[in-house]
């Protein structure tokens, strides 16, 4: 629970979740930023102005219809609290920012983990990209996993085997 351990519940997540109709069109950014941290790199990083913020200390609002799923905000978020989700072509995929040294390779099988690091499924690494962030000297690795469709709101981490 957020106010106990900082981890959102499924209820918290589902309160602000893209529609199936939007997810079928392809990647869309969702954030799990629930605190009034004074922070705005996500807003600045968005090339299509899909992320807005009333003021520095309010959580961001993502316009799912404007969002093109480019992933710039995922790479720029200091809290690693933005993910991309997609249901395009019948395949459920989640894109996770990953800052560990042992970056997996495309095609690798990994364990899909929930928000407490518990294994909930097997997952295939569908894509690994390095995106520039606002920090010009350091790029951020984004790993996209193909996961079971019903776990789209659940899988937010992975472990290599």
């Amino acid at each position: 629970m957020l106010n106990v351990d900082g981890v959102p519940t499924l209820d918290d997540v589902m309160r602000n979740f893209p529609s199936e109709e939007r997810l079928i069109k392809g990647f869309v950014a969702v954030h799990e930023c629930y605190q009034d941290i004074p922070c705005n790199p996500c807003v600045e990083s968005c090339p299509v102005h899909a992320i807005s913020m009333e003021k520095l200390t309010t959580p961001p609002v993502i316009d799912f219809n404007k969002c093109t799923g480019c992933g710039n905000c995922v790479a720029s978020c200091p809290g690693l609290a933005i993910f991309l989700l997609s249901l395009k072509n019948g395949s459920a995929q989640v894109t996770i920012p990953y800052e560990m040294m042992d970056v997996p390779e495309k095609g690798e099988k990994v364990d899909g983990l929930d928000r407490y690091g518990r294994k909930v499924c097997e997952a295939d690494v569908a894509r690994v990209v390095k995106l520039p962030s606002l920090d010009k000297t350091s790029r951020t690795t984004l790993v996209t996993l193909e996961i079971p469709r019903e776990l789209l709101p659940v899988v937010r981490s992975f472990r290599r085997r």
Partner: protein
Amino acid sequence: MIFTDVMVIGGGPAGMNAALTAAESGAQVLLVDKFQKLGGQLVKQTHKFFGWADRGAGTRGFNLAKQLAAQVNAHPNIKTLLGYEVIGGYPDQTYLAASWEDHVKISAKKAVICTGAAERMILFENNDLPGVMGAGAVQTLMNEYGVLPGESFLIVGSGNVGVILAYQLLQAGAHVDAVIDVLPKLGGAYWVHAAKVQRLGVPLLLRRTVLGVYGTEHVEEAVTAEVGENMEPVAGTEMHHKVDVVALAVGLMPLTDLFQMLQVRTEYIPELGGFVPWHDELGHTTNPNVYVAGDAGGIEEATTASLGGSIAGLVAAKELGFPVDENRIQEYLRALSSFRESSLSKKVLEGIERMRGDSNA
């Protein structure tokens, strides 16, 4: 004797910004730091910083340190004295700085003190056994010197320092057994920092304290237990953790020795981390030639330390008679208050109010 208009003590985010704004105003600045490298705590931070994107947010801490140090080193009005610790301050505005080899005397019309903070320790059985260390010490060894001081870590304290350390240890390939906290909920870390560590499988164990560490020559095991309502350990809830390092992230306290030596009035303000020099929003202390910025004036974070440093540098230069655009000071003050509109700043604001209130009593 080195003569300077403004001496800035401490080369972290507050000190580097103070040096820059004072120098930009025309003052000759001497920036002294006891370490060989500028950056303070920023150099240990691998995460991208929160805050305004146009004020460096989104940039990793060690890169922010590099950017600021490059500006400091490029400024013709700033001289740096690295590897020297200011250990004495006297009523005639002279100071003594010592290195391991020698010492120098400094005469400074104004001093901006940005000495930061020291880590707190807690009591438990065998807490002097090698392997028990401050979280900041682990970060220094790991991130500055490239030495991982252990294989398996127990972290005590779930504020930002504790959970960020857990994350950095995972990045360095170490095992993090758990982050524990005596509180019934997360001890002040940003939720997002705590969430990113837990989803990598590090358990956060709340209402739990360290009873002791055991081992023949260094830590081989730590024992923790749950605490009851009265904060006393509950028998039968012990857990044995096979770890070789117990990292303490149980809070920071401002480094105020120099202020006390310089006859600055200090106040005990728990919300700000302990004894702090009384100061106003411009960084004035009760000594007209001594200013404060950053964690030395109260534990907060790097963005507010930077803003406070920029303000104190401008104010010190202005009070030496250099032309300073008043709007710049006001702009930094506005930025500071909009940053502190967050509920996360509530405790700090209460502390500041209490500190200033005490002065009127």
